[in-house]
């Protein structure tokens, strides 16, 4: 996998350049890459019964227990096949859809980058590696949703998706780390075996809730569903790929992956099924009455994700099988329908259902694909969708206690889906032709190739479910459940309760379809309710954050230098006094007995210059007197045996003086502007700091003054080939710190330079005016 991932990422980087060379044929050629992945890993899946799950390990950050390890079992391989297979078709489709777009190369780069992240995510065997790939998918989907970055709507939708999924991702990271602690490591294979230990630990509840937060935001579960329809701002191939088949199923994948570790408790069943159920209904209800093809599909995706989560929440063998089959079915038909919607949009210039009709005659191939996918979505025979729905009802009926509630909700949601399927896959292609912005004609091969293949597969698997029952669904369900399962799918089971439910669903669906005009009116009437939706909450939160940031910036960064300095002085004084009060060990004070005469002289000079600098009536005098203080301090350093410090102090003081003199030139004439009161206040504050520092210096002796440290440094510095301890520390022991410091220095210097340049530029501009 590592090799495959590297190839995909390298290709992603090269895509823009390659696309420039290859031109419009690029789409078909780029598709060879995911197609290759599909073949290689398809073979792995077929061999799985013989080989068993395989783990590939590469050490990454061994000190933190992070490995770049990959796990191939039924679950990860099924996802790899979905991602690479649908990915290949999407790449072909994008080649046609974005033909001639000036940034098509960049688009391919993002798409391949996303594909690589997704492949890494589903095969990762280490929780933290999984998290990294998880975030990469959020990041790449941000780039893809915001692909039309000139549009404000695209940008805000992309940001919304990013924020929602990132916030969930952060919660998930916390959950995964806890899980690693409890389970004794980040290896998923090891964790899968220690489910009981995790479920019995005190941290189980936080782990579960945090991980679910990640999964639910990613898989657009209510109340986080709102980002998904927003993400429809992306170009259609992206919607088809990310928001139907891959990224949004990442949350479902996570639930499935960790199923053996976390599931089976009352909390799991309660929380996961509730969220799934609510999302299933919410998505279906919100889909009603939408007229934009892509938004319609987006809401049904929300509903479908709800179904998958619901099934994993139930967690019985049958439910997991149903979830797996439904995952495959949904990926096939939703991918198809999105691509069809894009093709229709591309050829007619509109996605508004009301403006479309009779396209079946001009776009027969597209219409055929749409019809097959529509049948699958309705769950009608002979599609795989039918088998899936039968399984679904069977799994729900099996639940003890509230089976009927689940079934009724399911029937309503599915019936609404049928009406949507009719609206999306039926209405535009039948009936009278309508005037469209562009004269409709059949889409080019690249645009119908993908839909036809996917829809066709839905039909083939429906007719011959034996192709996938044990090899794919069985293998996946076994991985999810952590135990081997046997299953055989077939189209016809005889007259069963499930068949009757299917019949009821279809009948209800037809009713909903016929009444769609009424339902739309109803929806418009309910529109004011949007004010209470979660999306408003998101906006309010974002606004609030910006407002708070502005408020505290205004409070803290007021722009008055004198108050900044005052803050520093007050805090420093307070901290020193606090420190003295707390950590004073009560030892001797610095002896003031053996003071030599010249020391007194230096002290007096410092004192006098200080007073002079305060009283001076001119900038230059003040600056020079401050310089005198600096030189005196340097003298003290020299007297007490710190020649390096003394030298540095002398030089710095000299340079400071030169700079200040140069700056003084620009200052206005010296004036006393502050009144008496503020001068007294300043005197008190500064005096306080002076007293504090003096006390601190006098107390400095009270701490331990063992000779261990100096001796240690002397010895070590000779080992490091130098007798000057200060220099050895700077360039050897703490060289990394020094490197950081000179980097900061460089940045600061360049900053000063840039600021002055900028000011000069402004002057010139003003002068020119």
């Amino acid at each position, binding site marked *: 996998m590592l090799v495959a991932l590297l190839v995909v990422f390298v290709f992603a980087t090269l895509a823009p350049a390659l696309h420039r060379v290859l031109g419009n044929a690029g789409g078909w050629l780029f598709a060879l890459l995911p197609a290759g992945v599909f073949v290689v890993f398809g073979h792995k899946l077929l061999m799985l019964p013989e080989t068993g799950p395989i783990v590939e390990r590469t050490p990454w950050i061994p000190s933190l227990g992070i490995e770049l390890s990959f796990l191939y079992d039924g679950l990860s391989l099924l996802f790899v096949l979905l991602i690479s297979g649908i990915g290949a078709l999407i790449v072909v489709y994008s080649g046609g859809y974005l033909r001639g777009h000036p940034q098509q190369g960049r688009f391919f780069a993002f798409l391949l980058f996303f594909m690589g992240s997704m492949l890494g995510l589903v095969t990762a065997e280490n929780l933290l590696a999984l998290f990294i790939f998880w975030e990469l998918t959020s990041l790449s989907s941000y780039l893809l949703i915001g692909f039309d970055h000139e549009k404000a709507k695209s940008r805000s939708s992309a940001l919304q998706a990013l924020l929602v999924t990132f916030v969930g991702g952060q919660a998930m990271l916390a959950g995964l780390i806890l899980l690693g602690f409890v389970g004794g490591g980040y290896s998923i294979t090891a964790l899968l075996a220690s489910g009981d230990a995790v479920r019995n630990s005190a941290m189980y509840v936080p782990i579960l809730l945090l991980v679910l937060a990640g999964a639910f935001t990613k898989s657009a579960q209510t109340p986080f569903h709102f980002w998904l329809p927003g993400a429809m701002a992306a170009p259609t191939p992206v919607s088809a790929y990310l928001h139907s088949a891959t990224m949004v199923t990442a949350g479902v994948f996570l639930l499935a992956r960790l199923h053996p570790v976390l599931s089976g408790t009352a909390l799991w069943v309660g929380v996961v099924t509730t969220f799934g159920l609510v999302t299933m209904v919410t998505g279906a209800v919100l889909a009603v009455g939408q007229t934009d093809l892509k938004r319609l599909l987006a809401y049904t995706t929300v509903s479908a994700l709800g179904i998958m989560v619901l099934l994993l929440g139930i967690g019985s063998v049958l439910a997991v099988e149903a979830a797996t089959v439904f995952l495959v079915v949904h990926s096939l038909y939703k991918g198809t329908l999105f691509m069809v919607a894009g093709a229709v949009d591309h050829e007619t210039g509109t996605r508004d259902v009301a403006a479309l009709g009779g396209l079946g005659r001009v776009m027969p191939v597209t219409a055929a694909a749409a019809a097959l996918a529509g049948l699958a979505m309705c769950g009608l025979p002979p599609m795989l969708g039918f088998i899936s729905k039968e399984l679904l009802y069977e799994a729900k009926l099996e639940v003890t206690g509230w089976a009927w509630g689940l079934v009724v909700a399911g029937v309503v949601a599915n019936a609404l889906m049928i009406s949507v399927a009719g609206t999306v896959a039926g209405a535009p292609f039948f009936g009278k032709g309508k005037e469209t912005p562009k004269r409709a004609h059949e889409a080019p091969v690249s645009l119908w190739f993908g839909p036809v293949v996917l829809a066709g597969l839905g039909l083939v698997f429906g007719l011959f479910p034996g192709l996938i029952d044990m090899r794919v669904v069985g293998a996946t369900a076994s991985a999810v459940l952590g135990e081997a399962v046997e299953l055989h799918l077939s189209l016809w089971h005889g007259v069963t309760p499930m068949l009757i439910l299917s019949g009821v669903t279809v009948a209800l669906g037809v009713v909903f379809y016929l009444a769609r005009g009424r339902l739309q009116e109803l929806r418009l009437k309910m529109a004011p309710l949007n004010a209470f939706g979660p999306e408003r909450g998101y906006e309010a939160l974002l606004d609030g954050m910006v407002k708070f940031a502005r408020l505290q910036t205004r409070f803290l960064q007021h722009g008055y230098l004198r108050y900044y300095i005052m803050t520093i002085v007050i805090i420093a004084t307070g901290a020193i006094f606090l420190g003295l009060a707390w950590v004073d060990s009560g030892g001797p004070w610095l002896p003031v007995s053996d003071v030599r005469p010249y020391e007194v002289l230096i002290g007096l000079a410092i004192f006098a210059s200080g007073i002079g600098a305060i009283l001076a009536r001119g900038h230059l005098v003040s600056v020079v007197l401050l310089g005198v203080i600096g030189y005196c301090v340097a003298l003290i350093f020299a007297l007490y045996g710190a*020649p*390096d410090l003394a*030298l*540095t102090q002398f*030089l*710095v003081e*000299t*340079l400071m003086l*030169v*700079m200040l003199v*140069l*700056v003084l*030139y*620009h200052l206005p004439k010296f004036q006393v502007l502050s009144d008496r009161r503020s001068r007294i206040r300043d005197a008190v504050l500064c005096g306080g700091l002076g007293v504090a520092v003096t006390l601190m210096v006098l107390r400095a002796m009270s701490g331990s003054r063992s000779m261990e440290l100096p001796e240690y440094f002397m010895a070590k510095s000779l080992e*490091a*080939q*130098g*007798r*000057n301890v*200060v*220099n*050895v520390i*700077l*360039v*050897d022991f703490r*060289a*990394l710190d*020094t*490197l950081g410091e*000179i*980097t900061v*220095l*460089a940045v*600061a*210097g*360049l900053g*000063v*330079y840039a600021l*002055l*340049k900028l000011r*000069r530029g402004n*002057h010139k501009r003003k002068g020119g005016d």
Partner: protein
Amino acid sequence: MDSLILRAAAQVLVPLQLFISLVLLFRGHNEPGGGFIGGLVAATAVILLGFAQGMDKAKARMRVPPQFLIGMGLLVAAASGLPALFDGAPFLTGLWSDLSVPTFVAGKVKLGTPLIFDIGVYLVVIGITTLMIFSFAEEDEA
């Protein structure tokens, strides 16, 4: 600022200062000195030249712009940490050769990566100090 005495003094002092700055740089590992101090001394030399002959002249005499010295210095300092990596040691571990170069004023100077690092510091300090002074001084003329 045009003073005959300053100009005449600068003729003698500037080369001397530069020489001392190098001495300080190379002896720094054993005696007081080092890249930081050496760099400051060198910068004062450039500034003295600037006061004596004008900042433009001083700038021209430096041959490379201060920004170049900053970048070069950072590069040299960072690069001095790389050889250790090939040795399997952490970044910036000091490596010393057995070679030492006799210099008449700074004693015998041993060659090693910390010395290269110090040269980097030296260049950065010269670059930043002169950059700032030149910027302030240009303000004067504007």
